């Protein structure tokens, strides 16, 4: 009954997670990108994405989840922060107040009008930051289980 390096070794769960994982990731991106118009946004999307990786960790193990993510979650946090902070700066270049939203509307043939903007960039930063944070905590705790 002692705690040990642990893998649930459940075929059903593993398969379930491989099935649900892409679904969750896609869903999180969907939530992120529609956030400006419909319920969703960077934070919500980020939590769903983090939940996806957490599912991987729970269904398989810490290593599998780490490998899937490839980068260290703290790096995600860093990138997220930089993106979010950078989103505040373009306004300064055009002489507007700090954090003023900049919009670049791009017409694409199939997808229609694409709204690129600093708020979107900002939301992506939030998205990455949230994923990074949740996963840092989850991974750290999972790692600590073995020590």
């Amino acid at each position, binding site marked *: *009954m002692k705690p040990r390096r642990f893998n*649930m070794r459940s075929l059903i769960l593993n398969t379930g997670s491989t099935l649900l994982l892409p679904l969750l990731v896609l869903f999180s991106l969907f939530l992120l990108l529609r956030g400006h118009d419909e*319920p*969703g946004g960077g934070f919500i999307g980020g939590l*769903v994405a983090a*939940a996806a990786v957490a599912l991987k960790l729970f269904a398989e193990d810490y290593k599998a989840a780490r490998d899937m993510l490839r980068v260290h979650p703290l790096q995600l946090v860093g990138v997220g922060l930089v993106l979010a902070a950078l989103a505040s700066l373009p306004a300064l270049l055009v002489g507007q107040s700090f954090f003023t939203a900049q919009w670049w509307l791009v017409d694409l043939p199939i997808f229609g009008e694409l709204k690129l903007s600093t708020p979107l960039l900002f939301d992506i930063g939030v998205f990455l930051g949230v994923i990074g944070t949740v996963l840092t905590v989850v991974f750290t705790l999972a790692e600590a289980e073995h020590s």
Partner: protein
Amino acid sequence: MSPILDYTLWVCFAVLSVALFFALWRLFKGPTLPDRVVALELIASMTVGIIGLYAIRTGRDAFIDVAMVLAITAFLSAIGFARYLEKGSHRDDH
């Protein structure tokens, strides 16, 4: 919205409210953690249902989004608890 639907929704809310209390009772009573988790899962499902009813009631489909997120993530806590139990950690619930 037709009165029939309106009335039905009222009944449904009442039914689900009662149902929630049964689940809550199990959540409280246990006796084991898996029992509680089962009850929790059911509460999540019922929450999905209530949100659906409420969306109809208000005619606002935006509420379905909450149900969507709930439907796809609520099971995670069950997985978490299950993993916890399988790790053979001590339990304080029986």
